[in-house]
């Protein structure tokens, strides 16, 4: 029971990170119907920007951890958002009216570009970071097993909840959110009623990249080590989460992220850690085959 509870805590933490990335996939899919394959690598770039910003702040003497983390968060969101914007502008916008698989192929190309760019610019070796947020609370003890919830886990879950609440308000209450939902339903009609479609799509990518940067920072703090390749597997899992929750649905992405995080954690805890990626990938296949609309998605009508 204690072991189960501990895994539950770990799973929720991991799931929060997946959820943040999954929103980026689901928003882009909702608005232009493409799988932004490079989104996982945007997350990776975000993690690198966070790492470098943190080191730079330490170097110039900002040593108060809460202040440093807040600044890192702002810098990472800002610069990663520029990356997200650029990727859309360079690789997706010119192909918006092209055939359906064209942007998917440039997205794969972009993913290769980002990975190799970071590898060249920062080196192929893993980048370790000393634990920044330490300590935790012992919840209770059962036999020799102690259930611990660490401060970093609390930080991750609280940050995720705050960011997602803010994001949810942005989507449901503001003009930007309204134009985004309008573009999602009918891009031509939205354009005719005065919505700047190009700007809305750009902002979607900017928002997605910002959330990915938050996830990147949290991932860095949680695992304490990143490399240029983390975006691939994490990206696929986050995409699985988006599909699981019902692609195009933002609450679905949050829910899907949690479920994928839990599945992965429990699989590693009770079965085998080598095959945890197989579990996540099989989950993707099973979900797509048996519930292609996901948990909270709308069924898509095939039109001639």
């Amino acid at each position, binding site marked *: 029971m204690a072991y189960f509870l501990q895994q539950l805590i770990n799973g929720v933490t991991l799931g929060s990170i997946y959820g943040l990335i999954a929103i980026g996939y689901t928003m882009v899919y909702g608005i232009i119907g*493409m*799988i932004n394959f490079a989104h996982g690598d945007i997350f990776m770039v975000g993690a*690198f*920007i966070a*790492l*470098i910003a943190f*080191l*730079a702040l330490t*170097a110039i003497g900002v040593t108060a951890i809460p202040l440093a983390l807040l600044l890192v968060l702002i810098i990472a969101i*800002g*610069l990663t958002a*520029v*990356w997200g914007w*650029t990727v859309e502008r*360079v*690789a997706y916008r*010119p*192909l918006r009216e*092209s*055939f*359906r*698989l*064209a942007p*998917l*192929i*440039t997205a*794969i*190309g*972009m*993913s*290769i*570009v980002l*990975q*190799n*760019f970071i590898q*060249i*610019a*920062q*080196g192929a070796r893993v*980048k*370790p*970071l*000393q634990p920044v947020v330490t300590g935790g609370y012992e919840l209770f003890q059962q036999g020799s097993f102690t259930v611990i919830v660490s401060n970093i886990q609390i930080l991750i879950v609280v940050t995720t909840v705050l960011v997602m609440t803010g994001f949810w308000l942005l989507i449901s209450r503001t003009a930007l959110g309204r134009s985004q939902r309008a573009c999602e339903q009918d891009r031509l009609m939205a354009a005719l009623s005065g919505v700047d479609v190009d700007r809305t799509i750009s902002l979607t990518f900017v928002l997605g990249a910002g959330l990915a940067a938050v996830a990147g920072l949290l991932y860095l703090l949680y695992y304490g080590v990143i490399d240029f390749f983390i975006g*691939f597997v994490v990206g*696929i899992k986050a*995409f699985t989460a988006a*599909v699981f929750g019902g692609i195009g649905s933002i609450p679905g992405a949050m829910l899907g992220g949690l479920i994928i995080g839990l599945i992965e954690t429990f699989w590693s805890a009770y079965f085998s850690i*080598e*095959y945890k*990626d*197989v579990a996540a*990938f*099989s989950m*993707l*296949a099973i979900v*797509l*085959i048996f519930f*292609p609309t996901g948990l909270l998605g709308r069924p898509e009508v*095939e039109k*001639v």
Partner: protein
Amino acid sequence: MADTGKTRDQKLVSALTDSLLAAIIAFALFSLVLGLRTVDGATGLTLEPRPGLLLTVVAIVFFGRLALNLFVWQTQYPLTTPFAKLFNIEPFDRRDLVTLGAALVFGAVWFATGLVLGEAVYELLGIVVLLFVGLGLLRRWLVQRFPNLPYTQIFIAGGIIFALFFPIVTYALESVFRFGMPLRYWFDLSILILTYVMLGWGLNIVVGLAGLLDLGYVAFYAVGAYTFALLATQFGLGFWVCLPIAGAAAALWGIILGFPVLRLRGDYLAIVTLAFGEIIRIVLLNWTEVTGGPNGVAGIPKPTFFGLPFSPFAEGMTFSKFFGIPYDGLHALIFLYYLILILALVTNAVTLRLRRLPVGRAWEAMREDQIACRSLGINTTLTKLSAFATGAMFGGLAGAFFATRQGFVSPESFTFIESAIILAIVVLGGMGSQLGVAIAAVVMVGGFEALRHTAGLQAIFGEEFDPALYRMLLFGIAMVGIMVWRPRGLVSARAPTISLGDADRISGDLVRQGRG
């Protein structure tokens, strides 16, 4: 962007503003990830500032964008016009001829500089420019002079003849005249290129003909390679026995994997095939008892010439003893070359034949419109499955060849990047075009290889510059660039397989693809 209403000054101002914006964005992009480098220090990571590099990159963006603005986008006479005219046979005017002449002179000067300094990179730049303009002029002249020659057929026939005679002729010349040509290297490279041509043609059946985007093609390549590796090392079976088994095993896996997923729409299918590709790789990596895990399977027997081994030490009859010629390590390579050439040509022949059969026509029809297909009574599931299995089979055959050539297989060789390279070859060559795929394979794999030899780049960028590192980066940039510039691939026009009356060549833009 070419609005003519602006005055010269207005154009200059708008060009400058635009370039400045681009430079600011470039600065934001690269400030942290390029301007600061993380290095392992004594107490963990430290940062090493690289302001020079950052400024250089930002300056390149600024001036590059400025040049594009002034000479291509915001001018009535873009510099690119004569190069475009070169290929669409519009008449030249004097300005075009001046620009082209200047390009030729520049190319020649670069080439000469390279020769004098011994810098391969200048030579290469010069050759690229000269070839581009020169071949364009030649093609233009030919098309104007003899408009009715079947150029594509001549080109294909020339290519096949070259491929058939290349090793024999170079080998004969070398053994008679001893030029000192690096034949071993050439043969290795051409075998590699042909392997990718075959993989490209195999995947072309799935992506190009049936319109199903398969991101896990390398899984079938792996299945073929491991099938042969395990059968040969565990049961001592020979290459020719294993070849069909490897193909059949891959096809079977294609059916097993394909059956559940083929109901999915295009991009979902892509992601699930990617997931399956990764699953197979992870299983190969962790199922140590059977596959040897990360160590792979070693000691796979080399192919034999119908039972005659290529070896100076083997007991009994060998290839060289049988034909009474002195042993040469190149014999085995030449044999491998013809083996993969035949396998690739068989793939091509089967594809071309299948396209004329009902099933091939069903594939192409399904690519164009799935719903119409179903309304006409075509079983789309079976049609998709047959395309998937056929493509997988050729992947498996190529895998068996790969295993026997390397003598060693490990999961390292079957990563997602390999799938992406094969897919890029198919897409950039122009989906569905056999010729385009072959050209793309030659350009991509050959170009990669050329990059490895531009040691002159080190003279510019410093000693620690490793061109091999930049291969994948350039590859990704090429993938994005060609897709944005020519979404239909390099060879985009193709004749329909079946037509009533005259077969008009249609532009690729009229063919809808990838709605699988």
